[in-house]
């Protein structure tokens, strides 16, 4: 029995969505019957990879350009540097949530815990074992994935509101754990005064760290966008729409959801590692439930049709809440009301409407060219 009734219908992906239902049988069969190595009657993997990710490549180029613009805007200004890192951290948390939320229709709210795992792992490995910070970057995603799998298995029978509630309670319990555990997690004080990230004696400057953070976000967003359009992505999106059909074709839907939750948690932990490496400290208040609520709004603001929507949403929300002096402390209020308005009147989000405008311009130019050609003939 699944608590919460039928699996949740998704937030509409709007623009950029592949014809999910059409590819259902092929994608489901591909993973279920042959372990993801292709299936008779469907295009070969090579063929699919050649044609499907065009949009991911185009989005990646535009996203990279956006990252360069953000870096130029930041320059060497210290405040803007911190905004940039915060925006990158938000982006990673939002992309982490995007994988289970938008792709599989599973909304987990435990991302403050996953980000904390990222931050605490690098701090604990440094403080307790004397390992350099960068080692924690590689260990944390696996710890977060294990935690997500355990939580996912325990809650595999629940969805929707029930999953939201239990994952929120988990996030609170995790926060209590790090606050009360002075031996391992440093208690309420946490770990102040962590050193600068160093690779074999070389330490990046603040500007270089910002460039690396933007590059990390671009790579993760690009990979998740590719993942969305890969056979696995089509499978899980199909599963979200018609879970019984996918289950009937031999795919364990509940396990696929657990996999998506684990992938999301890994990305969420990177956000924590990034932020803690930047501010050189972590404590129980570094990653609160507010982070989760803000992050869940980012794909809605930016647009759920592509993982880049999370990045755009993160940029808008960071600007509104921290850098837009006209609204003072009311930035969060504006964000939450803005999310309601977007859900009601503009569900495609910013990236979705940019794509609509791009298509309209392309169509108009093509029509004008056709008219001119006809006139010449």
């Amino acid at each position: 029995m699944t608590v919460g009734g039928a699996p949740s219908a998704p937030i509409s992906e709007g623009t950029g969505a592949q014809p999910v239902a059409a590819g259902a049988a092929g994608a489901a069969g591909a993973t279920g019957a042959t372990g993801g190595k292709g299936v008779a009657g469907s295009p070969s993997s090579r063929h699919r990879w050649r044609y499907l990710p065009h949009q991911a490549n185009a989005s990646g180029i535009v996203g990279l350009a956006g990252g360069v613009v953000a870096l130029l805007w930041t320059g060497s200004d210290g405040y803007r540097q911190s905004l940039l890192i915060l925006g990158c951290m938000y982006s990673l948390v939002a992309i982490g949530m995007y994988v289970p939320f938008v792709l599989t229709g599973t909304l987990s709210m435990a991302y403050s815990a996953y980000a904390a795992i990222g931050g605490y792992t690098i701090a604990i490995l440094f403080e307790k074992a004397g390992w350099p910070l960068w080692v924690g970057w590689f260990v944390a995603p696996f710890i977060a994935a294990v935690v997500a799998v355990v939580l996912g298995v325990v809650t595999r029978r629940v969805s929707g509101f029930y999953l939201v509630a239990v994952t929120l309670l988990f996030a609170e319990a995790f926060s209590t754990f790090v606050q009360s555990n002075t031996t391992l997690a440093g208690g309420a004080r946490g770990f102040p005064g962590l050193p600068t990230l160093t690779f074999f004696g070389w330490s990046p400057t603040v500007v270089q760290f910002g460039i690396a953070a933007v590059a990390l976000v671009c790579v993760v967003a690009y990979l998740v966008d590719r993942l969305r359009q890969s056979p696995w992505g089509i499978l899980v999106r199909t599963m979200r729409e018609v879970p019984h059909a996918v289950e009937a074709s031999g795919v364990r839907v509940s396990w696929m959801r657990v996999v998506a939750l684990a992938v999301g948690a890994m990305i969420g932990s990177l956000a924590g590692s990034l932020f803690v490496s930047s501010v050189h400290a972590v404590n129980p208040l570094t990653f609160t439930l507010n982070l989760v609520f803000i992050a869940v709004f980012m794909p809605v603001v930016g647009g759920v049709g592509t993982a880049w929507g999370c990045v755009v949403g993160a940029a808008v929300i960071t600007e509104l809440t921290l850098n837009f002096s006209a609204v003072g402390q009311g930035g969060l209020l504006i964000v939450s009301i803005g999310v309601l308005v977007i859900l009601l009147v503009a569900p495609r989000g910013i990236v979705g409407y940019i794509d609509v405008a791009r298509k309209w311009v392309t169509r108009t130019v093509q029509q004008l060219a056709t008219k001119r050609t006809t006139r010449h003939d």
Partner: protein
Amino acid sequence: MGNPQLWISVFIDGAFYGMIALAYYVTLIGSQFFNFAIGPYAMATGLGAAWLVVDKGWSLWSAVLVVLVGIVVLGAITELAVVRPVQQRATGGELPALVAVAALLFAIQQLAGEIFGFTPLPGQLIFPTSTFTLSSATVQASVVPLLVVAAAAFLLVGGWIRLTATGRTLRAVGDSNSAARLLGFPVNRIRLIAFMIGALIAGLAGLFFAPSSGNGVNFMSGLNWALEGFLALVIGGTGAVWAPLVGGFVLAAAGIFVPYYFGGNSVSYVLLGLAVVFFAFRPEGVFARRVRT
């Protein structure tokens, strides 16, 4: 377990969680929707009344009237302007409405902070009794009114659902929304009534619990109250009107006795443990509706 003062605390928290769960229950029966904004409704009335009386110098009764009317209007706005349009656009899927109600929860909390201030305010005593001693336990002035209001809320909602035409229609809509629509019941009107009554119950809960809330009411209280009420409903189940009250008392007993014996931090683990146990083994709650087949 033999300390009477702890049992008084169980009754206070149990009555409050039970009322929040009852607000969920009424909304759920009428609309098949968990309105997570119910926690912030309770926060808004408790904090709003305190702000009007303490900061603005209003009389208690005018403040109570204003916040209760305001919260019922907010309940109606939640259904008419947020949940219904988003659900219609998403053709019945629950995730968009869930995100919308999360945004609403966040918006109410931030708006309360902007208007009423970001510092906690003491709850206002309504119908206070004199403080008295009961079996070596001190019963504060705010306890009896809270218990009386909780009992009255459950009795009235139970009577309304069983004895009135609107209440029976609410149950019909809850049993099968589409069948009720086919039979010509005013489903949309019933949903609206469910949201408004749910908001009123949550508002009363916040108003009467605020004086018992240890550090006063602050704008962030709503999320925790929403989660605790939700958990009380999950524990109690939806099989009977009084099931949320049982869930509320079970949750309150766990929340009071476990920290007393195992330390203050254990309460988060107990809440998570209760949620996982009930979701995994008894997702329909203690009291499930039995249907003859």
